[in-house]
């Protein structure tokens, strides 16, 4: 198979009716490659995993287009046993039969020889192997032809407008326009076939004032490129930059914070790991914010069924979420990359009116404990419970006597990360690209950035007002969570509302602009 980077006509544009040339593998092709590889490997290797991503990215810097970045990544992996029995994951990015055959031969030369009677024959109805059997998956619509078509044309349409708009505003700016496709297949000998395909797109813009003291950022992410409005994103970044020029220092301390959706998403994204049940239970009394610390040693329990967040909050992961969604199957085995993938992963409410309603589980553990198996909520929607009031950001500001508006944060990282102890979920980061003081219901002035030290597990119990959720763009995110494939693009969509939180802990001023 030839995987090629297609010519990109950035200047011209293509008719909406023009046929779309798909860049990643279609289902049939993926299955053919998977079955071919299954035929090459030893009979005790039961599963093949294929991921094919393609992206088209352009970066603007200092008001000019700086670079483009286009291409494909392929990853094919299977789990084998090498040496005298060491469990290995074997990865490659080659698809043709001759190369795969060569790799398999070499790998198997390092594997223990199997006597005929040692060859594993999996009994499909054997409970131990039930996860490998054929399953039905929930239909999802994550693929948008507009985005696939936009891989060729979108950047040429969007970038001149972004550059012109920033220049017209008298600012300097940087921007990223990225579109991507992804196909993924998990295929097992005993019938389980999970194929997913998705598109995604993001536009992020950073505008800076001539004094170099003001900076504004805005972004938009959507699976459908037609839903992206690059000029609206640019205008918002410009407006924030202008408003944030020449900030003044404000004393740090606990203050009411109105966090924009991008800031909330950065916090939420870090909480995802804790929805794994094993994490809450595992080794040691203080592993997770969802571990019940009030029990005695040896009686470790989780907070399942207890209220952990504000009573209005819901955390829902739904493969069919109209603003995001995700392939409707396990993409890893809980927090582990090993083990079965492709098992159905249904919509799940993890937080129901502030109550911890469900944990993610390994498939086998879930079935053994008679709970619905579901994967880590890498893609999640945070929203108010039905019937609860929402507020716009303007309404939050109008209701704030003395506070701080935060557009987004720079890198967020855990603080309480010594050894395996992570009982607080305490994080730190610095406000970035738009931070303002609020007085008597109005934005008063731009203020210098703050460093914060806060845990969402506490902060989400101090919510004053909640907005309407929206899909958030991440732009660059330098510290991916440990359980996310950090080179994964498309990203897992995070859909969150703005929030007004009292006593948010700003601990110091930061010099960064």
């Amino acid at each position, binding site marked *: 198979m030839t995987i090629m980077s297609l010519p990109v006509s950035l200047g011209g544009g293509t008719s909406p009716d023009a046929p779309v040339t798909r860049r990643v593998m279609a289902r049939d092709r993926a299955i053919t490659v998977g079955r071919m590889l299954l035929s090459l490997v030893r009979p005790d290797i039961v599963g093949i995993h294929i991921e094919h991503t393609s992206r088209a990215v352009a970066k603007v810097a200092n008001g000019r287009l700086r670079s483009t970045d286009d291409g494909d990544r392929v990853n094919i992996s299977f789990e084998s046993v090498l040496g005298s029995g060491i469990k290995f994951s074997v990865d490659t990015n080659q698809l043709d039969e001759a190369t795969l055959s060569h790799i398999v031969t070499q790998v198997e030369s390092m594997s223990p020889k199997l006597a005929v009677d040692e060859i594993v024959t999996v009994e499909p109805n054997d409970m131990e192997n039930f996860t490998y059997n054929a399953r039905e998956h929930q239909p999802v619509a994550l693929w948008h032809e507009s985005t696939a078509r936009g891989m060729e044309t979108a950047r040429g349409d969007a970038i001149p407008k972004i550059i012109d708009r920033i220049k017209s505003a008298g600012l300097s700016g940087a921007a990223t326009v990225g579109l991507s496709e992804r196909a993924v297949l998990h295929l097992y000998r005993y019938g389980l076939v999970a194929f997913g395909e998705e598109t995604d797109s993001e536009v992020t813009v950073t505008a800076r004032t001539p004094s170099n003291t003001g900076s504004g950022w805005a972004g938009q992410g959507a699976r459908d490129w037609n839903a992206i409005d690059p000029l609206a994103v640019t205008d918002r970044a410009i407006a924030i930059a202008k408003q944030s020029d020449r900030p003044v220092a404000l004393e740090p301390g606990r203050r009411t914070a109105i966090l924009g959706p991008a800031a909330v998403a950065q916090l939420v994204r870090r909480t995802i790991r804790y929805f794994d049940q094993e994490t809450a239970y595992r080794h040691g009394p203080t592993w997770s914010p969802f571990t019940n610390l009030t029990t005695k040693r040896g009686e470790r329990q989780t907070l399942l069924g207890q209220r952990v967040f504000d009573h209005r909050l819901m955390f829902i992961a739904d493969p069919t979420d109209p603003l995001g969604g995700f392939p409707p199957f396990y993409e890893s085995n809980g927090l582990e990359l090993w083990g079965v993938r492709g098992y159905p992963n249904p919509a799940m409410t993890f937080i129901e009116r502030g109550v911890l309603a469900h944990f993610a589980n390994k498939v086998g553990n879930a079935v053994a404990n008679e709970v619905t198996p579901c994967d880590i909520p890498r893609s999640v929607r945070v929203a108010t419970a039905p019937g609860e009031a929402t507020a716009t950001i303007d309404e939050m500001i109008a209701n704030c006597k003395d506070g701080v508006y935060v557009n987004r944060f720079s890198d967020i990282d855990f603080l309480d990360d010594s050894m395996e102890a992570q009982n607080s979920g305490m994080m730190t980061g610095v406000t970035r690209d738009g931070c303002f003081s609020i007085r008597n219901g109005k934005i008063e002035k731009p203020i210098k950035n703050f460093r914060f030290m806060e845990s969402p597990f506490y902060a989400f119990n101090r919510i004053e007002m909640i907005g309407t959720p929206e899909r958030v763009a991440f732009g660059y995110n330098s510290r991916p969570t440990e359980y996310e494939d950090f080179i994964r*693009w498309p990203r897992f969509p995070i859909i969150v509302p703005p929030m007004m939180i009292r006593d948010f802990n700003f601990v110091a001023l930061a010099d*960064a602009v």
Partner: protein
Amino acid sequence: MPEILPADTLRALALAGIDAAKQRDVSYADIRVGNTRELRMALDPWGYAPQGWLSLEYAYGVRVKVGGVWGFAFGVSPNVDAVAQAARSAVETARGVARLGARPTELAPAPVVQGAWEPVVAVDPFDISPDDHAKLLGAYRHQARRVLGGDIEPWTEWQRETRVFASSDGSLITQRPLRGIVNMRAVGGHLSRRGTRLPIPGLFSSSAGFELLTGAPIQERVKEATEEAARLVNCPVGEVDVGRYEAVLDGLTFGDMISVLLLQALEMDRVLGYEADGVGTSFLAPTSEFLGQQICDPSVNIAAHRSASSFGAMKWDDEGVATQSFPLVTNGRVQNYFMTRDSAPALAEWAAKQGTPITSYGSAVACAPTVSPTGMASEVHVSPAAQGPTLDELVKQVHNGVVVRNMGRLTADAQLSGGMAYPAMLFEVKKGQITRRLLNGMVQVGTKSFLKSIAQLGGGRTMQQYLFESRRGESFARAFSSTYAPAVLLKQLDVMRLAKAT
């Protein structure tokens, strides 16, 4: 373990890509084509069960410059048509966007090079059986566990690549870099909440073969490091008092802070604003305000290296420029930044003043062929003080202060103007003696004040290696680099308390 394609084929593919670009009338084109093998091996945290990861990949990335715009296309299909198509695609894309208003720029000059290089390696780790990899790690764990309350985290990764570079200038280079990443930490307290972790002295990640991990002295050093980690875990504990203290940092902590706060700030992509919408900018911008200026104590000298057995050893960088050692900070003054041929001309005035050529010094790094090169650190040495003090001798100079060892990850802001960390090992010092281990202490630094606070560097025996993962986005890329640094005495360090639940 196999390579996907022979070097001759890689060279033919590289030349096909360059030919295709040249036919499209580009001002410059280059390509990196590579076979990569990676072998990762670890023992599970609780026992001796090994797990491995083996990756065998081929990829290419072709970069073209048209009218001042860089076009970059990459792929994984190992045939001439695909590589040529990628080159044409990169040209068309760059040409299309150049019409939108780019400014042509010059590249720093670099001689045409044709050649090959590979490091001298005693034992190729890819010739070692998986069993032997696992047995060695198991032996070190066994050694560590013989110490009461001791353990070790055994984790190694080997990266072997055949990488071909070709350019429209006529360069054609084949290199076979090898990296051994050794992440072994002696552990006191069996991974418990208050556990301690220390590096194994003399066990460094570098461009070397399996011999990195073998030899009787390593067993002894594992034992000694584990004994020290176990001893530290039994130190009396207390809660931290918030304040500003004199401080001693071990080499690992100082290397961490230098890597995160200073070395990243010296990356020209950040300085020039290319990453303003991505990873961030730099407090060391504009260069005219910092080059030649004093940013820290005159005793501080920092230099970049890519030669011999250094971690990122290459004879030529990812733009075909011969690598060489060069000063970053001399006598406390900024001398250079990490650059590429594209960004080096930004320092033309400074180079003329210094009487040096306009060059990147070979600091361009493409962590994979699918990533466009950027200027960043590969290996950096912070010079120790000649006949300088040991860690204990530095501690003896502290009247009322703290010692930080193996701080862990420091998180910085987008301009690298400051950072915060939660040190796993923070100790109280009174009258030159460590008195207690402090729990729940945070360290917060402003970069400029941190650099100005450096009072005295430790000697050669305090040198430790910090392995730093630098990241770029978007599109996402990451690369490891190595920083060797001595222990250091700081005039002051802000210590805070980890916020409590409210």
